[in-house]
């Protein structure tokens, strides 16, 4: 698990059983929707998210938990800084397979 970020971040992982991308929420559960993701601001809150990810991995709920750095600005917007994370959150940009 990467070290905490000091700015603005959310916690993501993959569900162990089905591999789905999930986000840690304010309700202390994992959700498939980024809109539910709990935003951590500053070092203390993002450190808490890191700890939450480690606990969930140890509890065998998720795999590969890590923080996604978000763009600063509008405090409710959940727009990742990294292109990779933008793509991961959006899902494949293509339709599946060929139209037969």
């Amino acid at each position, binding site marked *: 698990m990467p070290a905490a970020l000091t700015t603005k971040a959310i916690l993501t992982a993959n569900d*162990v059983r*089905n*591999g789905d991308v999930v986000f840690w929420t304010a309700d202390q559960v994992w959700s498939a929707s980024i809109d539910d993701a709990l935003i951590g601001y500053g070092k203390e809150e993002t450190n808490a998210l890191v700890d939450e990810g480690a606990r969930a991995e140890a509890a065998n709920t998720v*795999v*590969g938990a890590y923080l996604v750095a978000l763009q600063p600005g509008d405090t409710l917007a959940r727009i990742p800084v990294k292109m990779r994370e933008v793509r991961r959150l959006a899902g494949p*940009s293509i339709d*599946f397979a*060929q139209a037969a």
Partner: protein
Amino acid sequence: MYHYDHHDQSFVEARAREFRNQVERRLAGQLTEDEFKPLRLQNGLYLQLHAYMLRVAIPYGELNSQQLRKLGYIADTYDKGYGHFTTRQNIQFNWPKLVDTPDILDHLADVQMHAIQTSGNCIRNVTSDPFAGVAADEFIDPRPVSELMRQWSMLHPEFAFLPRKFKFAVTGAAEDRAAIKFHDIGIWAKADAAGEPVFDVYVGGGQGRTPRVAKLFESAVPLIELMPLLDAMLRVYNLHGRRDNKYKARIKILVEELGLENYRDEVRAELANIDRAPFVSVEGEYERICNAFEEGTPEMSPEEAIDLSATTPAFKRWVESNVAAHRVQGWAIAQISVKPKGGIPGDVTGAQMRALADLADHYSRGELRITHRQNVVFPYVQATDLEALYQGLSAIGLGEDNIGEASDIIACPGLDYCALATARSIPVAQELSTMLRAREAADDLGPISLNISGCINACGHHHAANIGILGLNKAEKENYQITLGGRSDERASVGEILGPGFAQDDVPGAVSKIIDTYLRLRAGEQERFPDTYARVGKEPFKEAVYVGA
């Protein structure tokens, strides 16, 4: 085709049972992810950008209709209704659930398939010529030696943890359709004066961030010496290959750092002391495998050549593009393009898999091949059946007549799926395909290879393409670098970078200008793209693409 014996069958079944137990322990919390990860990877199960991904081995690309039906069943039952043929002649499923993978492996074992050694630093699936056994230009059928190597490399205890992954390719024809010189070890099977198989062995090829064309290690190696030689080559690599830096761990780096002569000396010293006891039965086993392949080959009596002149223009064009010469007159090798206009290279739906399996039963004696160019081959088609086959393929969206043309694009999954990718490949391939199909309909562009990789690891073989495209992350924006002049045939070469990269929207325009330049400068319609490029150099292409852009 070759069929597993009871030993192989019981092995894959036992392996599936073992993985079921491992998954159960993982889900019960008895194994941590760190403990489980090497186990799942040894069974081809990755964790990718969005989900788990299962890569299933297709040894030397050969499948029967029953196996393809099973893959279609897996696609529909456990995934999102499709699979993706890869550049190693394998198939990947992009959305399996961990809880379902034991059942999937059981289904695979039912049809003699598995996902072993499709990941990790081991010897990966041996690839070969998709025309093996039927090519008109073939010296030696490469499948028996490929099968021999599969048996040798499968769970080889000494080569389970190599410095890095290791890829073999084998061909036995005049034209190299297996890209052997872009492999860690490439093998070119030929016949000696007595008609016995001998093997030219190449070493140190590969793509990735350090693309290299393999060098000839030794020529005309007799069968009895081949397996001990490969064993010695691997042992020297295992001992001296770098383990401190994964980017310098492939055998191409070892060969370069040691020098080919020094590497050869090390291998010969190893060979002089190698225990030959495991290899005493090689000739007998090779003969047994040859017989097994022969028994599985349908009777093919020479037939009258047929006249296609009276048929429809669309069918004639498909024949010209997609049908290759067969070793038996009146028979044909039908290549099925999995590159429809604007489609996703290598993706097939479960329904298409089932329909292809039915067509293979009707028209190819139930056998088919997957190519490293992400297409499908029917090896046993009677020429008189070609038109019916074409109609059947067209009905399921697989009648595209573009084999070997620029729109026959290789593309890796890229950033739409892959955790390592730095940019998307598939949407770029789709845009290019749409543009190129329109151009191919209007002009004869000739054969051009166009390959796209979504990162420097080069799974899309961009280095080996006449026109290569590499997707990069430039300041958090996708940027596409173009290389020209690569080729993967017997005259293998690495493409050269043309210049600064392009935004995604600008790639089709740049490629179109490159093709315009080729058409303007080629010395007649017979001169192929890489030959024109070698003759005129980079500058005219660079000028066309960048000047006034």
